[in-house]
């Protein structure tokens, strides 16, 4: 029994069958990569986990609870954090505030009128946020406005925002998209460190080289179907995978 169980998920967009009968069983504490060519349905699948999309049929269970039919903020409150394909941050706030907000969300829940306390007096939350920024090498930029960061830094900030919540499950949609090679390697190293903390991760990638050294298991998605699921070592040589990527030129 995994921490995330996906059974028989189908999703149509009009005439397009974006997901057909997707089944996944993700073990607690593991890093599970979902790879596949562009348009395979990877983002769509992730959207079904966080309440952005509702599958037509099928079930998504997290930690024994269904993730369907509840709001995104409720899903986050039970321990699922998500990094987006294009970083979603609070662009007009500074980095410290960006990281404090999720920390508040974890401590105070989805809504709390906390209008008399000063942010300056929230020593514990501030400390947590600063530590997190420090771990990701951004402490010196704590007072910079987030919108002015480079794309790589925005991604790291978003990661910090997720990690400060100490999620049970971290979902990452192409965390290295648009990054230069060096940045990509840094990010992967970072993700490996995070994995060591025991946070279950689901990483989506179209470039399978990126996740090879990171993932414990890999599922290959093509045209909305999981065609193979295996250990990284056995994925590369699999003829079905070769076929799925033919023309995709990523292998």
């Amino acid at each position, binding site marked *: 029994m995994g921490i995330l169980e996906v059974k028989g998920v189908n999703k149509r967009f009009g005439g397009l069958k974006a997901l057909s009968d997707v089944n996944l069983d993700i073990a607690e504490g593991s890093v599970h990569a979902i790879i596949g060519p562009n348009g395979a349905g990877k983002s769509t699948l992730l959207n079904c986990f*966080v309440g952005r999309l509702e599958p037509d049929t099928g079930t998504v269970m997290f930690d024994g609870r269904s993730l369907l039919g509840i*709001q*995104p*903020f409720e899903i*986050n*409150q039970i321990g699922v*954090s*998500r990094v*987006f394909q294009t970083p*979603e*941050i*609070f*662009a*007009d*706030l*500074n*980095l*410290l*505030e960006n990281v*404090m*907000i*999720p920390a*508040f*969300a*974890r401590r*105070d*829940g*989805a*809504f*709390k*009128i*906390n*209008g*008399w*306390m*000063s*942010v*300056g*007096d*929230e020593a514990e939350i501030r400390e947590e946020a600063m530590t997190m920024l420090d771990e990701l090498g951004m402490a010196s930029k*704590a*007072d*910079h*406005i987030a919108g*002015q960061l480079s794309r790589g830094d925005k991604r790291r900030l978003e990661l910090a*925002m997720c990690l400060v*919540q100490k999620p049970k499950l971290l979902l990452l949609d192409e965390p290295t998209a648009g990054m230069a090679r060096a940045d990509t390697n840094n990010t992967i190293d970072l993700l490996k460190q995070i994995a060591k903390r025991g946070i279950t991760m689901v990483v989506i990638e179209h470039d399978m080289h990126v996740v090879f050294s990171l993932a414990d298991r890999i599922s290959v998605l093509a045209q909305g179907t999981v065609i193979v699921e295996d250990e990284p070592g056995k994925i590369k040589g699999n003829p079905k995978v070769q076929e799925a990527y033919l023309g995709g030129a990523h292998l």
Partner: protein
Amino acid sequence: MLGLNKRDTLLFAIVIAITLLAPIILNPFPVASDLAQFNAGYPDLMQRFVIFGIFAIGFNILFGLTGYLSFGHAAFLGVGSYAGVWMMKLLTMNVVPAIIVSVIFAGLFSLLVGFISLRRSGIYFSILTLAFAQMSFSLAYSVLTPITNGETGLQLSLNDPRILGVSQTADGSIPMTNFFGIAMRDGFELSMGGWLFTFNAGYYLCAAILLIAFYVSIRIFRSPFGVMLKAVKSNQQRMLYTGLNPRPYTLAAFVISGMYAGLAGGLMVAMDPLAGAERMQWTASGEVVLMTILGGTGTLIGPILGSGVIKYFENIFSKINDNILHDWFAFLPDGLEDFVVAIVYPFVGKGWHLTLGIVFMLVVIFLPGGIVEGGQRIAGLFKRKPPEDKNKTAAASAPSAAE
């Protein structure tokens, strides 16, 4: 001090000083001088400065922090006014219950309007609030006349029941609004040299409430709740996926700003117990938007500055007529004098709207941060430090000191 950081304490202290000394500061010209007409230190106008300041401070909590632009906030001010007058008719001429009830009614009404309008965002939200306000305005003139007294406006009469008070005084007039016995009209005049200063009880009550309202707004701005409101403006998607529900945060901001508007409405009738529907018209809602933007949206002090400037224009600048202009330019040769007066005239007196409009456009185009940004740029020149380190606010001591 008072749970504020150093900068905010300083700002608050300055506002306290200016508010308390306003009767002196606003009357810089001797009574006999030509410039005495630019004196703004008379009770009626000072009360208006402060009351509209409160209105704008509250509006800024919604618009400045969450970015939701309401075009209907005058409706809450109107509701507050009516509720206040009714309290004086039915209960007592003491302004305290009237003000409290104004705030409560405005709060309840804004809860309803906010709950519905916040189902949409952006321009649709603005239109919904506008529609609500215009509806209230029309209803006040039609169906609701028993409560609002229609076009005449709701006022006190000689036979109001007034449970904790008298319907009329011994000499057969309507009793005066008071604060535990101190009549709002009371005060004293101080004549010094050629100068005359009026210290009015009503003004000081309004000023004390402004200071409380301002203090509360600083606390909100600096609180975790305030940060959440900024998050609403910045990225609601991110909030949702961060475990936060943006809707109740926005609604709370909407209701708080509605209560500020009700407080302003209550103070208006506490000073002058008359409530008319025109207070709810869209122009009144638009005015508070202008005040906030002119002063500096999302800054602490901006709304107070904006409302001061607009009320000054409306009441003082508008009084400059062509006689005064001829006086000013009398030193010029006759032909030239007429010419200059003809050019200047459209911009002053009744043309004050034109000048204000131009000022407003210039501010929006060149100083998107309003008067506050103007002040910061000037201060930046003196510090010989490039003013563009806005991205480096003093995060360590106060995250995003927005002003």
